[in-house]
């Protein structure tokens, strides 16, 4: 207990004491994170690295994903009711939830409806004084999930009841509120910052209700948190949580082996066998909720013919790609959604790798001397560790059926932008990581007619498919939705707007001393409930 007190006093005071000096009994977990957070206000950003450092340790949401699943559980809202017409969501808030007491903020009240209103209205209302509280503030996720047009208003019914009124019914609404942008901030802390004229600190020194409170951030080096003693879910088994920012995968592994950190994300595929063989390390693995694909431009001849697309799909050697690019950390994809997602149609048969068949199909389609471009993105993504290498494997195989491939690439932002163009020349390698576990988040966003010229990189608008997914979006019965989505996958396979390549497997190496870590199918890294043996 005295240790706790000493620690707190030290952190609150101007001089920050050394954590190690507070005694051997203070348990510290070091996480070698893969990059620097852009800031500490998760609503401003879209990157997982930023969420890992902000929304996950520091904040809570009204509802939370059950750890290790995409199932939604009560969070800061103990319960909720949805009106008959699906337009009103009423949340009953949890009582007795405390905000963090830190060196820069001491709360005087507990969490209530004002905090919920503050957290959402700053994103929703253009005239909210916090809408642009820091230079270049943009509510990326809130906007891209179409929240501004979806939410009509948010009403404070009483101190512990909040009602969201929608413009149209939306089946995944509750799941959306478990996402990072929906993190709940302290309105009182915001008011204090405003009074001090330091609004921008909201993005630099976060205060939330989460399991860990923020202690300090040394840019590009270290982020420190301490377990929040008054956390509504109970104090964490560890006392200190440290993020040691280490961008290089090989260096991260070195540090893990040397005991400088206890957990690391994203090992290099090449090192996986080595890690598995190390008795001091444990490796957790899970299928990622993602898909990597090659999207043809279905508006460009000859790729407007399904037979041509199908023929090329037969010329892609997925096994070679899994070996060379994923090095075992992937699984061949036959559907546009990952197998862990509900409604995955396992009855579908994949296009077998058969060069002779591919050649024959091309000839039958009347295509000769085909030359095409394959776009390979310049960056590593969770669904594709090395697009360039993947394109090279395809290039080599396509050459065998007489198709000449030129690999092109652009700077990542440029790549994303240019690949949207309806007159794009060539097929593009891209992928998607799920946000909330709903199939619509894949099929609707990536292959729906609305997405043509945007997130639908195949520029593919098929009436049969569109009817199925539109129907599935408004139906509330899950069994019926499942059937519709399964059927949509059949249409997809027949029409082949994409070559589905792979779903990656996510690995998480950690010291054998670490226990209680649960992998998140959505790709986040959570440290509540994690313990470390001395």
């Amino acid at each position, binding site marked *: 207990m005295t240790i706790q007190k000493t620690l707190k006093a030290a952190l609150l005071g101007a001089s920050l004491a050394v954590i190690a000096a507070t005694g051997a009994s203070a348990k510290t977990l070091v996480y070698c994170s893969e990059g620097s957070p852009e800031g500490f206000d998760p609503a401003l950003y*879209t990157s997982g690295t930023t969420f890992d450092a902000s929304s996950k340790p520091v904040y809570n949401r009204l509802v939370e994903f059950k750890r290790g699943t995409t199932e939604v559980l009560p969070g800061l809202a103990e319960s909720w009711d949805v009106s008959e017409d699906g337009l009103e969501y009423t949340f009953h808030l949890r009582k007795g939830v405390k905000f963090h007491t830190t060196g820069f903020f001491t709360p005087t009240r507990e969490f209530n409806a004002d905090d919920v209103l503050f957290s959402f209205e700053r994103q929703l209302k253009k005239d909210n004084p916090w809408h642009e509280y820091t230079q270049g503030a*943009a509510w990326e996720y809130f906007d891209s999930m179409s929240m501004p047009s979806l939410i009509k208003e948010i009403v404070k019914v009483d101190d512990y009841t909040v009602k969201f009124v929608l413009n149209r019914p939306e089946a995944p609404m509750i799941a959306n509120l478990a996402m990072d942008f929906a993190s709940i901030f302290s309105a009182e802390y915001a008011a204090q910052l405003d009074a001090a004229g330091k609004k921008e600190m909201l993005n630099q020194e976060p205060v939330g209700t989460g399991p860990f409170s923020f202690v300090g951030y040394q840019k590009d080096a270290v982020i420190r948190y301490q377990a929040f003693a008054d956390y509504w879910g109970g104090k964490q088994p560890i006392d200190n949580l440290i993020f040691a920012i280490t961008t290089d995968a090989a260096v991260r592994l070195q540090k893990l082996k040397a005991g400088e950190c206890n957990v690391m994300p994203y090992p290099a595929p090449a090192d996986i066998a080595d890690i598995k063989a190390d008795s001091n390390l444990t490796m957790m693995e899970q299928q990622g909720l993602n898909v990597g694909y090659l999207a043809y431009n279905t508006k460009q001849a000859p790729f407007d013919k399904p037979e041509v697309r199908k023929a090329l799909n037969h010329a892609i050697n997925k096994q070679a790609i899994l070996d060379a690019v994923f090095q075992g950390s992937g699984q061949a994809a036959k559907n546009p959604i990952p197998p862990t997602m509900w409604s995955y149609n396992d009855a579908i048969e994949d296009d077998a790798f058969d060069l002779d068949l591919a050649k024959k199909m091309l000839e039958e389609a009347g295509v000769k001397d085909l030359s095409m471009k394959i776009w390979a993105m310049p960056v590593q993504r969770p669904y594709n560790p090395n697009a360039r290498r993947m394109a090279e494997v395809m290039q080599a195989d396509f050459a065998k059926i007489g198709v000449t491939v030129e690999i092109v690439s652009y700077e990542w932002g440029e790549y994303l932008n240019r690949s949207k163009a309806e007159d794009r020349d060539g097929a593009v390698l891209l992928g998607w990581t799920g946000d909330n576990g709903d199939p619509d988040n894949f099929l609707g966003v990536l292959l729906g007619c609305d997405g043509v010229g945007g997130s639908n990189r195949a520029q593919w608008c098929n009436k049969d498919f569109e009817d199925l997914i539109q129907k599935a979006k408004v139906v509330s019965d899950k069994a019926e939705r499942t059937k519709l989505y399964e059927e949509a996958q059949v249409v997809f396979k027949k029409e082949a707007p994409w070559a589905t390549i792979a779903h990656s497997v996510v690995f998480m190496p950690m010291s054998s001393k670490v226990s209680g870590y649960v992998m998140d199918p959505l790709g986040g890294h959570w440290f509540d409930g994690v313990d470390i043996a001395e």
Partner: protein
Amino acid sequence: MAASSYPGYGMLRFLLSRIGLLIPTFFGVTLVAFSFIRLLPGDPLELLAGERGIDPARKAELMAKMGFDKPQWQQYMDYLVNVLHGDLGTSFASKKPVLTEFLTLFPATAELAFCAIIIAVCLGIPAGIFAAVKRGSVSDQAIMGTALVGYSMPIFWWGLLLIILFSGILQWTPVSGRISLMYFFPQVTGFMLIDSLLSGQKGAFTSALSHLILPSIVLATIPLAVIARQTRSAMLEVLGEDYVRTARAKGLPPRRVIGLHALRNALIPVITTIGLQVGVLLAGAILTETIFSWPGIGKWLVDSISRRDYFVVQGGLLLIAAIIMIVNLIVDLLYGLVNPRIRHT
């Protein structure tokens, strides 16, 4: 004043003329930094949004907010005015002022560069002198051979090799970072070595030092080789001069000849060389910091270029150029001070 102290006046005129040269260069540098980011293909907003994409109308709105819709010349004028007021813009990613970010990260780079230059000078000058004195001997050849290897070294590869050996196989040094995570103290100066001493925590200084050693060796490699080679040739030149020969002929002990006469004159060009290494160090820092995950400005800039963090790239280029210009000015002045002849050229 001018008439009474002519040498001082000459120095002042020299100083003014050098500063006079810097002003157009500085404006040129602002123009370069400004135009680069306008020419930079890519799109920070698309990057930020990732696969999810951004609404075109929303994008136009955000671009306008940053002033990208104004005519180019007006953007440049605004930029110049801001620069002269010390405002270098705001980072897209962190939403913090570029200058603040620079000042937080600069000490890390400065510390690394400073240690590297200490290593380079303390080993390079004695090695160069030794080689010059023992001219033609096996040790001369060994030193100069090693120096040439160092000079030819791709330092990014060298860094990887050192990590494999010292951190991987031997486990003597930590892999990356500036200090063990066990230590936590306020950043007073930003220099980890000094801060760790100030904190009074046992072992903190040693820890900081052990983290610094590999990156500084890597960064020191090329300057060390250059300084050793330069010292040797400067020494050889001086040793051949008449007055040194005379001193030798007069029977002064060799140590005195080398120490007093030769060295003092040989060091003048060496000082210039050391000054010129600042640019080399900053360029080397880009690679070294990337390899060792060292949280300094080199890595910051590389990351910002790939992130298309426009104002960071623009501001970072300007600040780094300013540092190099100032260091070169100081070197020039020092050189003018020790060698009055060049003031009038």
